[in-house]
């Protein structure tokens, strides 16, 4: 891909250009959405601790730029497939926070009527074809979504998220190969957060960069600093253009990190506190906020207001979700067949 990167980042000049192009409103949306994702997950954690959410969940705190920067490059009617660590994708794609939180609480008014929970939230009307409890589970589906959109002929494109762990699965190979040979409008976004559960990407992949595997499919690939929202945007945007204009797939790797454990049952035995702290210092939200204030797009107090608005929206969502009813037991078998 035609990207000039230093340490995975586009230049400051390029960032300025992009900010200008995006305009203040979009920039605000980016910041607020990243805050919203974090606020959502912090709230979910809190409610989990209180026993109001059960099961398990996979938090993406620290990875917000990957979700938001990627989806910023899409049109509203483009389609995404998400992952088990998909709350950020869902929110960035425009999901209703209330229905999302209600789903976490297993309520009838949740996106899945309480059937799915964190791992299966979908917002089909909003273009999110679903999180996935199976690692790499979305990758084979991406072939079909790409085929369907290509046949439709409306130049809609598809963005498929997956993790560094999923890149070791056979599904990755079949999906990228078929997208390449059929010339499908698919953007593959690998969120490399360094680990598949406890298995370091350094162990699972013999290459420096997962995006170098794009070459095996004659596809362009790029690896960007996944904690830099504008670099993510710059890379994914190119891939989106290629998908939309040339109907060809690409692979973008967002290098990032999850601050929390893998799921609700992780003792963090496979990594050090120092490593976590070092990554926390690269907080994608703080970095973008600093850029916006440095570039005088926002004042610090405006930035603070945006953050507060995000947290408020989550409080409202949680309150709404708590007020929702449990699914009716009589409806238990609904939805198995159409």
């Amino acid at each position, binding site marked *: 891909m035609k990207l000039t990167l230093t340490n995975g980042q586009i230049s400051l000049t390029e960032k300025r250009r992009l900010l200008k192009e995006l305009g203040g409103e979009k920039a605000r949306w980016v910041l607020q959405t990243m805050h919203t994702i974090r606020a959502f997950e912090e709230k979910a954690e809190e409610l989990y601790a209180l026993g109001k959410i059960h099961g398990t969940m996979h938090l993406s705190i620290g990875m917000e730029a990957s979700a938001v920067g990627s989806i910023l490059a899409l049109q509203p009617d483009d389609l995404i497939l998400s992952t088990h660590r998909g709350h950020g994708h869902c929110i960035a794609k425009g999901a209703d926070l209330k229905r999302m939180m209600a789903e976490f609480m297993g309520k009838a008014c949740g996106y899945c009527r309480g059937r799915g929970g964190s791992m*299966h939230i*979908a917002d089909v009307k909003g273009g999110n074809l679903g999180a996935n409890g199976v690692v790499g589970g979305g990758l084979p589906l991406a072939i*079909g979504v790409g085929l369907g959109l290509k046949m439709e002929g409306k130049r809609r494109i598809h963005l498929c998220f997956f993790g560094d762990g999923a890149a070791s699965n056979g599904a990755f190979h079949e999906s990228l190969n078929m997208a390449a040979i059929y010339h499908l409008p698919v953007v593959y976004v690998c969120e490399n957060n360094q680990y598949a559960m406890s298995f370091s990407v350094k162990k699972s992949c013999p290459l420096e960069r997962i995006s170098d595997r794009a070459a095996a499919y004659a596809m362009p690939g790029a690896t960007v600093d996944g904690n830099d929202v504008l670099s993510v945007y710059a890379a994914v945007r190119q891939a989106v253009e290629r998908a939309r204009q040339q109907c060809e797939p690409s692979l973008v790797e967002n290098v990032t990190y999850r601050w929390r454990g893998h799921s609700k049952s992780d003792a963090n035995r496979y990594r050090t506190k120092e490593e976590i702290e070092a990554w926390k210092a690269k907080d994608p939200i703080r970095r973008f906020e600093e850029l916006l204030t440095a570039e005088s797009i926002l004042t610090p107090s405006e930035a603070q207001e945006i953050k507060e608005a995000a947290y408020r929206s989550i409080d409202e969502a949680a309150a709404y979700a708590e007020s929702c009813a449990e699914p009716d037991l009589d409806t238990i078998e609904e939805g198995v067949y159409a």
Partner: protein
Amino acid sequence: MSTRDITYSEAIREALRQEMQRDPRVFLIGEDIGVYGGGFGVTLGLIDEFGPERVIDTPISELGIAGAITGAALTGMRPVGEIMFMDFVTLASEALVNQAAKIRFMFGGEATVPFVLRTPMGSGTGAAAQHSQSLENWFVHIPGIKVIAPTTPYDAKGLLIAAIRDDNPVLFIESKLLYKTKGPVPEEPYTLPIGSAEVKRQGKDLSIIAVGVMVKRSLEAAEKLAQEGIQAEVIDPRTLKPLDKETIIQSVIKTGKALIVHEAAKTGGYGGELAAVIAESQAFDYLEAPIVRLAGRDMPIPYNRTLEYHTVPQVENIVEAARKLARLEV
């Protein structure tokens, strides 16, 4: 339009062609289904009519095929996939079981996954252990999937059209040994109800419930049995899931004896489901003898012709089992 005698595989091809003509959302995808016509020639010629955009050859990527039909269905298409041999649905099963079958339910009913996945099952071709399996019960066991296994050209066409128009993922299992069998099929498109068994032969002495090619063998067995004065009723469930339990139960109430025949390995097979359905129904009170399962041996299909022949039920085995059951010698 009129009814002609055509083969089972021609009937399937005709259903595909007519649905593709009717509905631009229908397309085919699978290995070598284009110029090669598929492993058994079922799709032969369709690529000439519909082009490579709607008759899509794939690499050897069974998971990819299953994913492709699932994903395309989510975008509103109505794909028909093909897995060349049922043995290879193992490679596709994650997408079928964890994705396609569950998406609608997991998403609270807000998505539909309308596709058909065609695949041939069974032994009898000398293709040995990895090309001869019958794994229908795997998918019968998965909520969210429908499973159809037609046994006549007429049923094949009507049920395939119904399956394509159905809004759920449907596994459409074809019987290799039936591809060349002929029967009357109306030219025009028609559908048969999914979930309706057919009594393929009336009889009062025992009920034979058979799957796939075993329906044909059971009918042949019934002819022989008739010469001995035993009148076997032969039931073809046609759609294994949803199952038309009522037709089976009523038959067993009438005859008091049930013989289940399939070629899949006996243990853990669909025969267990059928036996249980009968044993837990009101037919229980009418049973005059144990429920008998005649099924494939619990072993892989061997290559040698004679061994292969003796691995799955043949007409003479059905005759013998039915005779014993009719005479209450079990």
